[in-house]
């Protein structure tokens, strides 16, 4: 099974190629090509995962090309961490393919959409299987391409065009960090291989300053991809893409790649206390920052997008606080419940043809499956006990506390409260109360869409039992087989932590209930009492505007300045050269005046100069 794991990414690649060939086909049966091939990837991934669970692993490599004496290799590797990722990615990809068959029904470019999904899945699975940083980087960029193409799928919409461009450029800023970090490590270690890098780190071959520098550079890459502060602005805009794309790429897989990168390079981060602190602080601040924006958004997908940013911040916080298992655990559970929430949101949008929650309401009775499934997702992300999010969030809080980062701990608790609040604000506004928009003809989505949601719903409930103190810490035992030394073991924080976490989430739900369901409290008391703050939050802390006023305007200004420089100074140089040549030629042509006396004078003048040279140099001037 393991020897064939290289096939896992190739199935979706085949799907991409086939669907591009059939791109003009009007038949929506083309979707089955994608579904079938990602299904094969899923089966193989599960098989690989089972083998790894039994303690197997594999690493195969060959020379790609050589630079001098050094061979640059390519290959594939399976270890506990990436086997888990393989299953998550191929599962969500498979379910999203299936769901899209219903969601994209009637689209002009139906096969193209599935082709792009295939390209993305190929890149994401390839990224996960990479045994070295360079190969990871290559797939990392291709993943970005997949994301770009899918965000810009509705290419004729100006918003989609802008969002696709923004996503590519913002993540590229991060990618350059990864690029630099990777090259610096290469010159320290002499290789891009994870194993060799970790060996050098263990042996202390790299100075501590260099360790911190490279870890931070690599983390910049993770910041870009995972939408962390300050490079988060592309992720909410990425919601311009079709909703299944948001579920697959911008919730479950690609944005988690940043977290995966930090986890895959964990021994490097562990070697630098500074790097870990930066990871933890960026994660913690992002968690609460994005949650605060989520409180006031009106677009159902944007609320979920900010929620994703916030949850990714949680994962980073966990990794920074030495909670390796907690971070990956939350990555897993989040993939399921967030994909579920997005697909459910897609189902709602599919039914009411709007994304504005002010135009929804009272959909619980009309969407008999979507409603309860959305509720499961909301409960899971809020951290209500017994659902998956509860266990993984609890683990993160415990790790943060055990690591002595008390400030970040309380920040995370507040963020948990906010999460519960905005999720249930969303739930009540969408599913309860009276319809606020035209809801004629609203009906439940077809089973091809609800089926993937049901699967994810089940996983959103049970995935938490992968790692509990009640039944067993299966996940951390499993991950202990990987290259990362889990020095701290499990973080069993004080017993009051789960109680505080639960209280925070119930408080959030309760408050949302009182405001948006009961109407006991008025929703706008904050807006009224703190108009300044709420305005800032509503406008997403003006980050986009700030970047526009500084970086974008600055770059454009510099470019304009360059254009002027080029036009007047550099072209001026040209004009000078041209007029110089012309002037010279005028002098030359004036000499051709037919007067033998002038010619003779010049001839003698020339001979004198030649003789002088000969006399001075004493012969040949060799």
């Amino acid at each position, binding site marked *: 099974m393991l020897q064939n794991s290289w096939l896992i990414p190739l199935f979706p690649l085949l799907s991409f190629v086939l669907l591009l060939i059939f791109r003009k086909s009007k038949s929506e049966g083309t979707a089955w090509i994608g579904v079938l091939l990602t299904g094969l990837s899923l089966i193989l991934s599960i098989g690989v995962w089972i083998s790894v669970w039994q303690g197997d692993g594999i690493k195969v490599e060959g020379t790609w090309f050589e630079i001098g004496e050094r061979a640059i290799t390519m290959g594939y590797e399976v270890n506990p961490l990436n086997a888990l990722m393989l299953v998550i990615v191929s599962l969500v990809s498979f379910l999203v393919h299936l769901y899209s068959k219903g969601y994209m029904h009637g689209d002009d470019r139906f096969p193209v959409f599935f082709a792009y999904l295939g390209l993305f899945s190929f890149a994401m699975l390839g990224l996960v299987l990479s045994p070295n940083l360079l190969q990871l980087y290559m797939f990392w960029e*291709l993943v970005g391409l997949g994301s770009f193409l899918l965000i810009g799928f509705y290419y004729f919409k100006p918003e989609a065009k802008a969002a696709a461009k923004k996503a590519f450029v913002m993540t*590229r800023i991060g990618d350059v960090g990864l*690029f630099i970090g990777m090259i610096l490590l290469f010159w320290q270690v002499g290789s891009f291989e994870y194993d060799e890098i970790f060996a050098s780190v263990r042996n202390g071959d790299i100075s501590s300053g260099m360790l911190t520098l490279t870890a931070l550079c690599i983390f910049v890459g993770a910041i870009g991809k995972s939408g962390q502060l300050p490079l988060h602005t592309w992720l909410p805009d990425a919601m311009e893409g079709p909703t299944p794309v948001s579920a697959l790429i911008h919730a479950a897989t690609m944005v988690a790649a940043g977290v995966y990168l930090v986890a895959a390079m964990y021994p490097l981060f562990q070697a630098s206390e500074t790097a870990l602190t930066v990871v933890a602080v960026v994660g913690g601040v992002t968690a609460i920052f994005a949650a605060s924006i989520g409180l006031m958004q009106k677009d159902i997908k944007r609320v979920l997008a900010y929620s994703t940013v916030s949850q990714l911040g949680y994962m980073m916080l966990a990794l920074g606080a030495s909670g390796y298992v907690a971070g990956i655990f939350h990555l897993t559970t989040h993939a399921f419940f967030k994909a579920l929430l997005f697909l459910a949101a897609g189902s709602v949008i599919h039914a009411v043809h709007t994304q504005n929650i002010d135009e929804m309401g009272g959909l619980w009775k009309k969407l008999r499956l979507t409603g309860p499934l959305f509720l499961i997702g909301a409960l899971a992300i809020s951290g209500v006990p017994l659902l998956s999010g509860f266990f993984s969030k609890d683990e993160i809080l415990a790790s943060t506390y055990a690591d002595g980062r008390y400030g970040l701990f309380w920040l995370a608790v507040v963020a948990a409260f906010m999460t519960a609040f905005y999720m249930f604000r969303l739930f009540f506004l969408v599913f309860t109360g009276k319809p606020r928009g035209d809801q004629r003809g609203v009906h439940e989505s077809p089973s091809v869409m609800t089926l993937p949601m049901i699967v994810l719903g089940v996983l959103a409930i049970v995935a938490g039992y992968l790692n509990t103190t009640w039944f067993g810490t299966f996940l951390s035992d499993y991950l202990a087989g990987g290259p990362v030394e889990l020095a701290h073991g499990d973080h069993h924080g004080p017993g009051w932590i789960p109680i505080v976490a639960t209280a925070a989430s119930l408080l959030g739900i309760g408050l949302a209930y009182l405001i948006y369901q009961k109407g006991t409290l008025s929703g706008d008391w904050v807006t009224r009492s703190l108009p300044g703050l709420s305005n800032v939050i509503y406008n997403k802390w003006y980050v986009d505007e700030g970047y526009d006023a500084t970086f974008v305007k600055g770059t*454009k200004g510099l470019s304009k300045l360059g*254009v002027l420089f080029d036009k007047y100074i550099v072209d001026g140089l040209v004009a000078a050269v041209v007029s110089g040549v012309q002037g010279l030629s005028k002098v030359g042509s004036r000499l051709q005046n037919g007067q033998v006396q002038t010619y003779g004078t010049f001839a003698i003048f020339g001979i004198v100069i030649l003789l002088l040279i000969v006399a001075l140099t004493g012969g040949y001037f060799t």
Partner: protein
Amino acid sequence: MNTWLLSILILSPLLGVLVLLFTPSQDEKSIKWIGILGTLFPLGTALVTLSAFNKSGEGLQLAEKFQWVSYEVFQSNGDVSYPIFYEVGVNGLSMVLILLTTVVSVLAAIASYSIKKDWKSYFILFFLLEMGMIGVFASQNLFLFFIFFEITLIPMFFLIGRWGYLEKEKAAYSFLIYNGVGSAILLIAFVAMFMKTGTMNFEQLAYTFSLPQSELSDMNITKDFKMGMLIALLLAFAVKLPVAPLHSWMVKVHVQAPPPIVMLHSGILLKIGAYGLIVFGAGLFPDQFESLAFIIGLFGLINLLYGAFLALTQRDMKRVLAYSSVSHMGIVLIGLAALNEAGMTGAVFQVVSHGLISALLFFLVGVLYERGGSSQLKDFGGVAKRMPIFAGVLLAGGLASLGLPGMSGFISEFMAFLGLFETMPVLAAIGTLGLILTAVYVLRAVLAITFGTEKELSNAHDLSSTERIPAFILLAAILFIGIYPAWLSDMLRPTLDSILLGLGG
């Protein structure tokens, strides 16, 4: 047959000229067919040459050498004769560039379907240009190199000035003046080297200049002389590459010349600058080159960022691509400045990769002009609807240009930066800013054309089957190098190794 192979290759474009001489000048269809077939013959010959070429072999291969002219100089200790040879040969580097030349020539000939007048003289000049380019890369002495170098200038001048766009004459003169000044400097440097050493052969020159200073003093060759020569050579080839601020002629040519000619110009002719820097700069004066490395790197950085910044706000697609070329040639310079195997390989990869990518992009600009009668970004929008294949290829070309992994642009950028980070990490770190800017300007320009609200075009139809041939071949070549770089790097290694040996690396 191998003894004459290279000479046949160099002269092979003349067959097309010969046939054209007997073709009526009004017969457009036949002329264009002869144009394409006439470039296929050199391509075939180049492939035969490639198969005769031993990829792992070191030194010069398929060399030919005959005495051409000789003249006697009277000196006190007796007559000294200075023979001038016709000597050609190929190593890995020149083999690769000759192959690139012949491939791009075929595709440019296909793209010449858009030429509207005087087809006969157009193709005659086209073939002469191709011969010049092949000759430049095959020459093994200064004299021959210079002759072929000049041969490329003349057809190019007429091709721009006669078949170009509105301000074609101005562009042609600008081209001639700048390149003329460059050639003049080159000629002076070549003559001075010949006078001092008595040889024009590249290998002998490299050997002579590598002698210890005590022996060189007997020939009156001082360190300052070597440095002076190097600076002269760098200056001459900096015009050709071009290095900012000597780039304005090249922008004019990019904008005014007909697209197939720009494919050749941007794809091959600019690369003569890079080739010259490697063969004459690093190859003949390694020590001096090493001491100037930082300055070369600095100029590379300036090119990279200056080009990228200017490409950001251009309104004409051709100008975007012109400044993009300036920026990408910066990568060649920083790769060379790294003075190590990674950087040097990156520089040569960039030469090949940019040749393919810019040929592809300029081909597509030609198509765009054909469809909309303009290359202004504001005249286009939403092209992806009516011309999905065109839009897809344009996006792919753009992505290759911004260095997407899996395509040739990534390998060259990656290796050039890998090399520079070893020797000049700070310069390299600043240079990575260029990677971001490239993404911004490429996507801005490409998406302005293909995405967004659709704008009416006078003649919107997707790539025809004729147009798909160059587009797909170039794209395939870009992907091939991106996925399987070993094919190229293996061929280049012996040549680059010997240059690096001189650099003490």
